[in-house]
């Protein structure tokens, strides 16, 4: 057994409602755990120092940087990634729909993080002003869109979510 394997710690965590148990090295970042151990590559990795927001996921309903948490710290927690949002290809979530409708994405690299930040924003504030949208997404960098259409998309999603579906189980 090599040194790394000897140091492995068991972690059990719920990701998009499914419980997973894995033995991982303590230094495995939550972002790499999601991508490499669980194959959930929708969590993108841009900077690995908290700056770009591409890796933003929800832990316990709160938006956090998956690159600034170790997988072992997700023990007993519930993690939500972009993969858990849509019921299927034909049943996109209103936020996803709005990003498409409003051209809120081009290359799509920032999009999972943008959408997860938006989920948290709208759960805490279902009717944000443009300024509140910008503050809520300030930690998500996009190299393509120039942000205007992202703000527009969040506005559309907020309107739609207020007038239709029951709220998601996200607390903040």
């Amino acid at each position, binding site marked *: 057994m090599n040194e790394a394997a000897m140091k492995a710690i068991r972690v059990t965590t719920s990701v998009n409602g499914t419980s997973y148990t894995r033995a991982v090295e303590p*230094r495995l970042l939550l972002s*790499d755990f999601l991508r490499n151990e669980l194959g959930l590559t929708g969590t993108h990795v841009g900077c690995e120092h908290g700056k770009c*927001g591409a890796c933003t996921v929800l832990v316990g309903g*709160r938006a*956090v940087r998956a690159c600034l948490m*170790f997988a072992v710290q997700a023990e007993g927690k519930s993690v939500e990634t972009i993969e858990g949002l849509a019921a299927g290809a034909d049943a996109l979530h209103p936020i996803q729909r709005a990003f498409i409708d409003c051209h809120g994405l081009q290359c799509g690299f920032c999009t999972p993080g943008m959408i997860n930040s938006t989920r*948290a924003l709208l759960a805490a504030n279902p009717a944000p002003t443009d300024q509140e949208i910008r503050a809520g997404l300030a930690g998500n960098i996009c190299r393509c869109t120039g942000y205007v259409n992202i703000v527009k998309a969040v506005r559309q999603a907020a309107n739609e979510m207020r007038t239709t579906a029951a709220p998601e189980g996200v607390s903040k």
Partner: protein
Amino acid sequence: MKPKPFDYVRVDTLPALFSALAAHDNAKIIAGGQSLVPMMNFRVAQPEVLVDINGVEALNHVGRDGDWLCIGAMARYQDLIDSPLVRESLPLLSEALGHVGYPAIRNRGTLGGSVVHNDPSAEGGVALCCLGAEVVVASAKGERVVPIAEFFVTTYLTDIAPHEVLTEIRIPVPLPRSGSAFRELAKRVGDFAIVNVAALVSVGAGDKVSAVSLALGGVAETPLSFDVGPAVIGHPLDAARAAEAARLVDALSDPQDDNVAGGEYKRHLAGVLVKQALLAAYIDAMAKGA
């Protein structure tokens, strides 16, 4: 994988935390991880053992103790911002913490971790200097209480030994007729500030300033308070008095160039923000009635 391999220890109680720290050389506490993990990802920090205090309930409290507000080291920024108790007794702290990073950073990061990390323009540190906070530092051997200004030694260095834990931040609640304001300029929302200013002003008879406290970030190695009492105490606070206070700060500080801004620019900015913050704090105090 980016960080160097390390052992991971999760603790739930203070005694377990003290013994974990005593048992290992080169152990580090992880609180919110929002400063430590970036440093580990870059391998600037290479702890051999990481002691996780996220589950220590005894460090996760916010409460009033007479004229003091006591904040446990694991209290996260967003919880403090959302706390009605903090908003009512220390609006300056709520306002300042709203400027820290982005929502995702505030959801994890702790005020305790920020104080131990000691960035020169950390909003938490600037507000705590202005408010005259104290920190409680504990180990298996006992506790000591350190005024925040003494705790901040120099950039990224604080008065804490490897086996010690910052357990609590204690902040005196300001006098009833006090007002406060926090002002900062950063290149983008959520960036570390180039300069930031926290002001606390108390008014007495005749709307004259009876006490003032002012702290700045970004102009020295650590957040720093400045005595501007001679410029403003005993008078209503107007633009001329605020300008005089800004001159005092200018005479007492010597901001250095860094990779974000030049010293001369920071000097100018400090003057502008000091005037704005003092006037806003005075107006806030006046709004509290006679």
